[in-house]
C-alpha cells in the first residue's frame, strides 16, 4: 500500500464560540456551538449578529471534519482548508465582524442590561459591549488549535495504517522511534 503522496500536515482543534451574552449568563467564556451559546438579549433583536456567527461557524464546519474519539476536529494545515470554506466568503464574514454592533442592531445600547457591567462570582468584571464596539468585541467564532503554531504530520495520526508506514526492521525494532519515511513534525 505504499503511497507516493507526501504526508500532509493537518491541524487538530475545535470550533469555539465566544459570546459576551453566554459569559454574562454562565460565566463561561466560550461555548461549543452558536446554537448552544446562551442568549441574554431577545433573539429577534440580535438576529443580524447571530446570522454572521452562524455563517462563520458553517465555514469552519465545512472545512474541517470530526476527529474521534477525542471530540475534536481536523483540517488541513497551511490555510489549505480555505479552499473548501470559500476563501472570499470567509474573508468577507471575517470583515463583517468589524462592523459596529449599533450599526447592525439599531438601539443596541438601550437593549443592554443595566448596569452594563457586573462582577462575576470569582471577582472578575463582565462587560456588555456598547453599540460603538465592533461585533468581534462581544462575539466570535474561531478555530482553536490544540497545538498552536504548527501542524501535525498525518502519518503520526495514521500510525501503522499509513500508506507510507514502514514496519521496523529487526534492528530498528529495538528503538522504534522513527517508523515513517516522511518528516517527523512532532
Amino acid at each position: 500500500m505504499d503511497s507516493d503522496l507526501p504526508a500532509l500536515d493537518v491541524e487538530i482543534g475545535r470550533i469555539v464560540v465566544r459570546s459576551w451574552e453566554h459569559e454574562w449568563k454562565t460565566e463561561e467564556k466560550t461555548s461549543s456551538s452558536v446554537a448552544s451559546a446562551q442568549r441574554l438579549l431577545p433573539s429577534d433583536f440580535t438576529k443580524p449578529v447571530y446570522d454572521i456567527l452562524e455563517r462563520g461557524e458553517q465555514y469552519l464546519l465545512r472545512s474541517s471534519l470530526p476527529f474521534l474519539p477525542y471530540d475534536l476536529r481536523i483540517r488541513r494545515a497551511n490555510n489549505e482548508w480555505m479552499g473548501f470554506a470559500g476563501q472570499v466568503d470567509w474573508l468577507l464574514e471575517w470583515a463583517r465582524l468589524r462592523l459596529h454592533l449599533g450599526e447592525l442592531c439599531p438601539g443596541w445600547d438601550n437593549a443592554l442590561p443595566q448596569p452594563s457591567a457586573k462582577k462575576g462570582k470569582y471577582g472578575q468584571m463582565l462587560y456588555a459591549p456598547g453599540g460603538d464596539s465592533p461585533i468581534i468585541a462581544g462575539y466570535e467564532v474561531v478555530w482553536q488549535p490544540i497545538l498552536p503554531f504548527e501542524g501535525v504530520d498525518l502519518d503520526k495520526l495514521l500510525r501503522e495504517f499509513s500508506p507510507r508506514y514502514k514496519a521496523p526492521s529487526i534492528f530498528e525494532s529495538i528503538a522504534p522511534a522513527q517508523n515513517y519515511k516522511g518528516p517527523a513534525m512532532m
Partner: protein
Amino acid sequence: MVGPLRSPLRVTTSINFLGGRARTMGSIKDIVSELGGIPHALGNDASDPRRRPWISTAAPVAEQITERPVVDSSRWEVSDQVRWEEQKVRARQLVEGEGHSSEGGIEALAWYVSFHHNQELWGIYIPLSSLALLDELYLSQLRMDRDQRLGLAWSILLHHEQTHFAVDYACAQFELLLRAPIRREFSNRFRAEPPINGLTGFKPYLRIEETAANAHMLRQLARTESKRTVRTIENFVRLQPPGYREGLDAMSNAAFAASVAETLRSYLAIWAMEYRLDLGSHALNLEWLLPLEDKGALAECPVYAIDDLSQVGVASGSLSLIQCIAEVIELDGFKKQLRKQHNDIQNDWSNCKDRIKVRVPAPPRFEKLKGWKPPTWSLRLRDGHRVHLQPPEPGAGAWRAVAIGNHKEMGHG
C-alpha cells in the same frame, strides 16, 4: 422451528422472497475478498462474538436465523427468580448508563460484529434473554400479548444493529475506492494510546452513529407500529446514554441524513485529509451510501440468536423463535376434514406446507390463538380457510396439523 436453540441459530431474510427490488450491492464475500488485498483492512478479533460482554460465563450457542422469526413464549418459566431480578437490574444500569463504555445503551442487549474484525462469525447477535429483558423493562405496559412484545423487541434490536452493518458496508465501499483500511484504523484509534500530546475529551463510542441507529429503528417502526407503541419505544430511547437518546431528534429525513453524513465523516476524516477528499459539502448525499432500504443488502448480514436464557435465570426453552416448520404430521381427524375441502383448498394446503418449510408467514397469517390449550397456531389459507397447528412437544421435531376449515368452522367467529 427453533427452540430450544441447540446449534448456532442464524436469522437472515431469504433473498428469494424479496421480489421486485434488484440487488444493488456487491456481496460481502466479494468485498471481504477484495479487502484482503488492502493491508490492515481485515483483522481477526480473538474475542468470541457470541458472549455477552457483561455476563462472564462461557459463550452460549448461537443459531443463525434466516427470517424474521415469530416468537413463542408459551413455555415461559423463570427458574431462578433472584438471578432474573439481578439481571434485570444490571441490564437497566447498562442500557440507561451514562455511556462510559461501548457496551451501554442498546449495545448492552444486542451487538454487531464487523466483517472487518471477524470474517467467520461477523453479523448481528441478539440474545434471547435480551428480548425478555427489553420486554420486562420497557415494553410490558403495551396492550399486546407477550409474544407480540417479544417480536417487537426483536425488531427494535435488529433495526438498530442493521444500521451498524450499513455503516460498516459504506465504510467498505470507501475502502475499496481508496485502498485504505478505514474501518480498522478508526476502531484501533479507540484502543490505542493518543498519537500526540494534547488529545483530550476521549469518547468511548461514536455517539453520532448510535444517534443514527436509534433514529433508523424509530423511523422503521413508526411505519408499522401504532402511535402508542412508538411512544413507548421513544421513552425507551429517551433513557439511553448520550448519543443514543439523540436518536429522538434525528427522525426527520433531514436530521437522519445529517446524522448518517456525520457518522461517515467521522470514519473518513483522516482519510479525507490523506486523499484530499471534500466530504464537508452539505450537497453530498452520504445517506445514500447506507443500504438501509435495500432488503437484499440487509439480508447479506447474518443474524444470530443466542440461547442464553439459562444464564439469566430463565428456564431453557422458555422462548422459541419460529422461522419455519420443516415437518408437519397430519392427524387422522385433520385428514378427514381435508378430504371434505374443495380441491383449491387442498392444493393450497399442499403448497403452503412447502412454503412453511422455508419460512412461516408474518402475523396475522400465522399466529398463536389466544388462550388455546394445548397451544395452537392458526395458519391462513385462501378464501378465509385456516389450518390449526400444534407445536412439537419438547424433544419432538414435527408440528401436528389438527384441523382445517373456513373461518367459522374453525371457531374464529
